[in-house]
């Protein structure tokens, strides 16, 4: 192919690139309006803080990817081994392949972060190194072991494919997760120490005198560990779904479309399924921050950072809508799905109302006249929606609604055969209805009790929602046993617009990570280490939200561009093979008994 043909073939991309380049060029005068301070030892153009911020954020995004995807891979491999479904094996391998490139990117950004910290913030680094030196050596050592495990895991995939060898291979996958999680826990201790150093550490305490374990296992360490562990699984699933969406849109054959439609569904299912418990982990972290220091808690939730929570509510609202949208469109490819279509509009009303309640600010952006009409920044009628009682109620009802969408999706093509199917379904409905009433009750009752009591109500709301999810799902699994089918899921027969919902989900997740990471880190304000070591650099002031949003957006764009490169490279290493699959490969839980083997991907590479 000569250059002209190549250019003609790629003309869409070239036009798009030129358009983006042109827009950036047009935006330069806007950028020039910002004054960029220049300091002696400052990082050129963007300043030391932005340099460290970007390196840390992009490193973190890659780290989440390389920790989240192995979780996904090892679960998929387990399904392939114990459920005897080879296509999950191929799925697991396809994603481990992407890890090879992503690991290098993670390490490169980690190295960059390290160099930037040691050169731009040497005092802080020396201090941390003096306390955490030993754990830093272990961290580096584990990284070696983790890399070796990854390479062994990937390159022995075909060699150890059967029998005990396969179990051993799966064990390697588990080990990979253990090393990765340990590495994350270690790094988490350094950054959580900066937020919540032990109470007995003061500015006069020499770092050598700080007890290692009390610094390591500080107040916010475990909440961050759990929050990140869950979030990584969510992120891994979302990336997998976005990758599948990209492949789906590029697919040229029905087999390819079927495969990537299925992959997108599985990725999204994991992302959204795990995501439903993420707010609870986040709530625990927030509460620990409050308990550690109320000033930080108020800065985060009611003070300067409170607007980030409105942005967060907006983005999570988008996530809920996109996730439900994807499931509802998916009903179109399931025989029997049309039974549930009339109900989606009522669920949509709950989601939109929940979205509105969740994103209603406590203190509103208003002009002078509007302020005068309201009698302050609190709206006399909508003001009640600004409190956590309303917001917790809204989010819990949105979680239940999303869960209901998933149930409809599961049930769509099944005809239950168990004698108690009707009773079971009524029980499911009753549990869901009771849970919704309990959530609403505590939401309303919260306005009539002292704040400290009201905070406790959110725990009851969370518990009833979790109980409902587990109980209803268990009943559903039992009802589905031996069920007849209305027909196979028509994988691949999904409108293209549904795939953009998967892109929306991954972009929103990535943005959320950056935004809320800023909130967690920014609450330290002018302290490197809270009330122990001040930030005495010219960047000590907490950045404005607009500036923060710009830096985070740059990080998101950088990460997504690089992850697109990883997808592309991953595709070059090994082309997927799509051939008919063995007939015993069925999965009643997700595919329905009508699953059509001829449309499914290959079992090996």
């Amino acid at each position, binding site marked *: 192919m000569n250059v002209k043909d190549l250019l003609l073939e790629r003309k869409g991309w070239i036009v798009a690139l030129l358009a983006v380049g042109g827009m950036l060029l047009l935006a330069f005068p806007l950028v020039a309006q910002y004054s960029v301070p220049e300091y002696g030892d400052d990082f050129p153009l963007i300043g030391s803080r932005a340099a460290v911020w970007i390196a840390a954020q992009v490193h973190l995004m890659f780290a989440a990817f390389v920790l989240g995807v192995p979780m996904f891979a090892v679960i998929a491999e387990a399904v392939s081994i114990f459920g005897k479904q080879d296509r999950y094996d191929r799925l697991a391998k396809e994603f481990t392949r992407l890890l090879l490139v992503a690991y290098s990117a993670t390490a490169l950004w980690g190295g960059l972060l390290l160099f930037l910290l040691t050169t731009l913030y040497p005092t802080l680094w020396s201090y941390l190194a003096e306390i955490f030196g030993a754990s830093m050596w272990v961290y580096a050592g584990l990284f070696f072991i983790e890399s070796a495990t990854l390479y062994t895991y990937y390159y022995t995939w075909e060699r150890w494919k059967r029998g005990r060898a396969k179990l051993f291979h799966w064990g390697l996958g588990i080990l990979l997760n253990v090393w990765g999680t340990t590495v994350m826990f270690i790094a988490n201790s350094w950054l959580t120490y900066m937020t919540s150093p032990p109470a007995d550490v003061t500015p006069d305490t020499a770092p050598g005198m700080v007890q290692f374990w009390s610094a390591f296992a500080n107040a916010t360490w475990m909440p961050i560990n759990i929050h990140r562990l869950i979030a990584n699984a969510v992120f891994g699933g979302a990336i997998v779904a976005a990758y599948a969406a990209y492949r789906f849109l590029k697919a040229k054959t029905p087999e390819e479309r079927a495969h990537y439609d299925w992959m997108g569904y599985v990725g999204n299912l994991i992302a959204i399924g795990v995501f439903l418990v993420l707010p609870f982990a986040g709530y625990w972290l927030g509460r620990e921050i409050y308990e550690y220091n109320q000033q930080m808690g108020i800065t985060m939730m009611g003070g300067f950072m409170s607007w980030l929570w409105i942005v967060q509510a907006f983005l999570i609202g988008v996530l809920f809508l996109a996730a439900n949208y994807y499931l509802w469109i998916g009903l179109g490819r399931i025989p029997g799905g049309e039974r549930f279509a009339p109900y989606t509009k009522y669920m949509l009303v709950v989601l939109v109302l929940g979205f*509105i309640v969740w994103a209603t600010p406590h203190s509103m*952006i208003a002009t002078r006249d509007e302020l005068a*009409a309201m009698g302050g920044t609190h709206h006399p009628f909508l003001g009640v929606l600004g409190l956590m009682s309303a917001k917790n109620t809204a989010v819990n009802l949105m979680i239940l609604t999303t869960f209901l969408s998933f149930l409809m999706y599961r049930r769509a093509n099944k005809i239950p055969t168990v004698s108690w199917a009707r009773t079971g379904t009524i029980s499911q409905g009753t549990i869901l209805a009771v849970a919704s009433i309990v959530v609403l009750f505590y939401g309303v009752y919260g306005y009539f009790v002292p704040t400290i009591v009201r905070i406790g109500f959110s725990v009851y709301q969370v518990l009833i929602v979790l109980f409902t999810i587990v109980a209803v799902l268990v009943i559903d699994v039992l009802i589905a046993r031996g069920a007849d089918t209305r027909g196979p899921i028509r994988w691949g027969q999904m409108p293209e617009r549904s795939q953009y919902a998967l892109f929306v989900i991954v972009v929103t997740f990535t943005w959320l990570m950056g935004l809320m990471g800023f909130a967690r880190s920014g609450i330290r304000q002018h302290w490197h280490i809270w009330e122990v070591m001040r930030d005495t650099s010219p960047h000590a002031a907490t950045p404005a939200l607009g500036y923060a949003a710009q830096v985070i957006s740059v990080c998101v764009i950088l990460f997504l561009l690089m992850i697109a490169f990883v997808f592309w490279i991953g595709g070059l290493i090994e082309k997927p093979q799509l051939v008919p699959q063995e007939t015993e490969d069925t999965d009643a839980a997700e595919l329905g008994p009508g699953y059509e083997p001829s449309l499914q991907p290959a079992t090996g590479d």
Partner: protein
Amino acid sequence: MRKNLQEPFWQALIVLAISYVLLKWGIPYIPPLIGVSSAPVPQSVLVQFMLTVAVGVLVWVSDNEERWRRFKQPIREALVLPERKRVRVALLVLLPLLVGFVTYDTVRPRVDAPAGIRAVHPAPPTQIDFRGEPVRIEGAENPLREEGRIEEARERGFDIYYQSCMPCHGDYLDGQGHFAHGYSPAPLTLRGGSTIAQLTESYVFWRIAKGGPGLPREGNPWNSAMPAWEDFLTEEDIWAVTLFLYEQAGISPRTWEEH
């Protein structure tokens, strides 16, 4: 007409129109009919709400293949059919004009101050300097409450409130004092569950002691006319009036988390 009402495109427009009417005029005017006070929704929040409704409507029209096809039909017809040429020309003129007007209206110079963003509660310091003496805010309880001098403190707080606070915060503690209308933003209401009910007494002590001048630098400008009452009242006076506020409003202060 009736046929059109069954088409998703027109249904979507009707939902948007009804939502706008409810949000714009329903919220300020319906609650007062049942004795609940309300006010117009600020433009920023109205835009946010309408955006949410619009996304919801888009989800609804496109989550089903048949509905999506029917939704697009009138748009396609307006853009393609020869007999819809007048509609097409009208849209091609009106839509850019509308966008142009909105853009003009957004960027045209105004004498009003721009809409301000304001944090709910500024973050309190761990410790403050009160007339040269350190006072711990983090973890502090009202000493008058701890010493069992509640009734005495309430009476003292009563006197101080009516001498110093009532002109702005009002006889009923609802932020509707005689001077209130001279300020923007108006003085805070101290009733209800969304203001001091969410705060510890030491937080309120800090706010009274340091007033507007003592608000933290982050989150500026605060636009608060509240004086720094440490210049006029003693430490015990401020604790007394803090206790009075909660007693009079019939609410409990937030307590500290148990460790």
